[in-house]
């Protein structure tokens, strides 16, 4: 079973251009910064917004097709939507909310389904309470139960944890993962949180300023994000203009006055070099891609020290570099004012501005 969506939608100056396919089995992540069009994408698939052109299909059922003028209303799409703030009906109890999702069923069968879902999502004790009287975690479970009560053929999750604090998030992620593992249809999981995506979705589709990139494996995306936007989304913090070097496999960063060796091939349109803060480390004797730096500032993070570095010989307006280093390793450094750091050739990311 698969959900395919290829469409465009213009909203004022913003132009959304999406091409993705989610298979059943494991959720496909839609990763993007805020304002990149993630929510609009989901709303177009669910039928809440109408794309300008394109085609959306689910298991061979056409949900939207601008050419044949098919545009099923949300009611007939069979697409479940978990909203950011859950959108539980505030005047109904948890039981009534779930029953509203199961309205297609007859009395007895409906009651059985509602009871089963209440039990499965551990909501029996809260069945008679209203959404405003239960915890954030219970709200999420109630919204999931209500969604599944309608027996959707595909599920869309819009930032499912943005309304929760971080400890709850951790617990609920496990539950949501299990729920989705038991769901037979495709699922699309929208997030801006790399960790959340890494833990839950093996495949990722990056959405950058309204344009979606082809879906890739998570590990592959981290190793080679390809664009500056994707690199930013995957935790890269250091960027500098780059050009192709004269030696084979080398690149030049004029701002830093450096020539470095990169493992990846030079691609057409590369403008920027990216280095993750964790990829920088104090150079071992004789290590390649080593360069001397001045330490501008040091900040203590939870698990690491963050050092802001300026390469010796860098131009005045050249970008600085963040290095993240384990605290013990940092403490053992003899000189904390200046040090020679290195980056492995495979950790040098060669990036284009856009797709």
């Amino acid at each position, binding site marked *: 079973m698969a959900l395919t969506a290829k469409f465009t939608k213009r909203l004022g100056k913003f132009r959304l251009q999406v091409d993705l396919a989610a298979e059943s089995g494991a959720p496909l992540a839609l990763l993007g910064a805020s304002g990149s069009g993630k929510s609009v994408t989901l709303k177009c698939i669910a039928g809440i917004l109408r794309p300008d052109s394109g085609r959306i299909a689910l298991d061979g059922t056409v949900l939207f097709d601008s050419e044949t003028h098919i545009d099923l209303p949300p009611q007939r799409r069979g697409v*479940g*939507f978990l*909203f950011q*703030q859950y959108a*539980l*009906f505030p005047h109904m109890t948890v039981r009534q909310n779930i029953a509203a999702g199961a309205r297609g069923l007859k009395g007895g069968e409906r009651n059985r389904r509602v009871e089963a879902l209440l039990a499965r999502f551990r909501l029996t004790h809260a069945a008679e309470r209203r959404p405003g009287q239960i915890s954030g975690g219970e709200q999420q479970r109630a919204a999931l139960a209500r969604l599944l009560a309608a027996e959707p053929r595909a599920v869309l999750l819009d930032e499912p944890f943005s309304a929760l604090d971080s400890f709850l998030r951790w617990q609920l992620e496990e539950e949501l993962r299990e729920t989705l593992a038991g769901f037979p249809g495709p699922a699309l999981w929208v997030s801006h949180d790399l960790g959340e995506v890494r833990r839950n979705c093996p495949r990722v589709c990056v959405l950058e300023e309204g344009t979606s990139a082809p879906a890739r494996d998570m590990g592959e995306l981290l190793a080679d994000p390809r664009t500056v936007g994707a690199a930013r989304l995957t935790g890269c913090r250091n960027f500098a203009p780059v050009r192709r070097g004269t030696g084979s496999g080398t690149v030049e960063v004029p701002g830093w006055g450096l020539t470095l060796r990169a493992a990846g091939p030079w691609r057409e349109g590369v403008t920027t070099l990216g280095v993750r803060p964790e990829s920088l480390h104090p150079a071992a004797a004789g290590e390649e891609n080593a360069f001397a730096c001045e330490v501008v500032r040091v900040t203590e993070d939870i698990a690491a020290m963050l050092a802001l570095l300026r390469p010796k010989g860098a131009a005045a307006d050249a970008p600085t570099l963040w290095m993240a280093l384990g605290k013990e390793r940092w403490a053992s450094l003899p000189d904390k004012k200046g040090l020679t750091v290195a980056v492995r050739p495979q950790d040098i990311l060669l990036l284009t501005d856009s797709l």
Partner: protein
Amino acid sequence: MDWFPLYNSLRIAAVSTVLVFFAGVCAAYYVARMPRLVKGLLDAVLTLPLVLPPTVVGYLLLILLGPRRPVGAWVLERFGVRLTMTWWSAVFATVVVIFPLLYRTARGAFESFDETLAQAGATLGLSNTYIFWRVRMPVCRQGILAGTVLAFARALGEYGATSMLAGYTPGRTATISTTVYQLWRTGDDAMALRWVLVNLAISAAALLALNFLERREGGQKSWR
């Protein structure tokens, strides 16, 4: 004491409020989703009776419904019914005067309604009718209820347009407000005061009921 004015005022207010409830909610729902320019224009037109003097409203209605005016003459000829000077003539006047009160409060309530609730309902397969009556209306209940009570209270106090359309015929078209005026004009101060007290009591009760409803609603929401 002849209680007819009380009975007449209550039935005029009740009928008008029911009519305005449906018309106002309907108008509010559709105007709230109009593009901005049309919305501003319609809003001005629909709110106009709120700022016009009731006598102007009465005058305009007489131009339309009077026995020698187009609509009034047609109805008189076709059905043999005069649209003015009956108890229900006051309903025309009252409906126009109280419409903006309900329309505006309902529109405010609809505009602050969280649309994702309706969207969630649609993705769950709920019909638009169900979403309107079982989700949108109950969630906006407080605002709409407040507007309804306010409209009812105002309907009880309507004088200007009512007196022009229905006049003052004791036992036929007299309302509390027209009775008070007549009694005062004819120098029957004691009787006028009685009706004033009746009117005060009803209006106060309506507003207290409104407060009570709001507090109960508020209490439910803040409990966590």
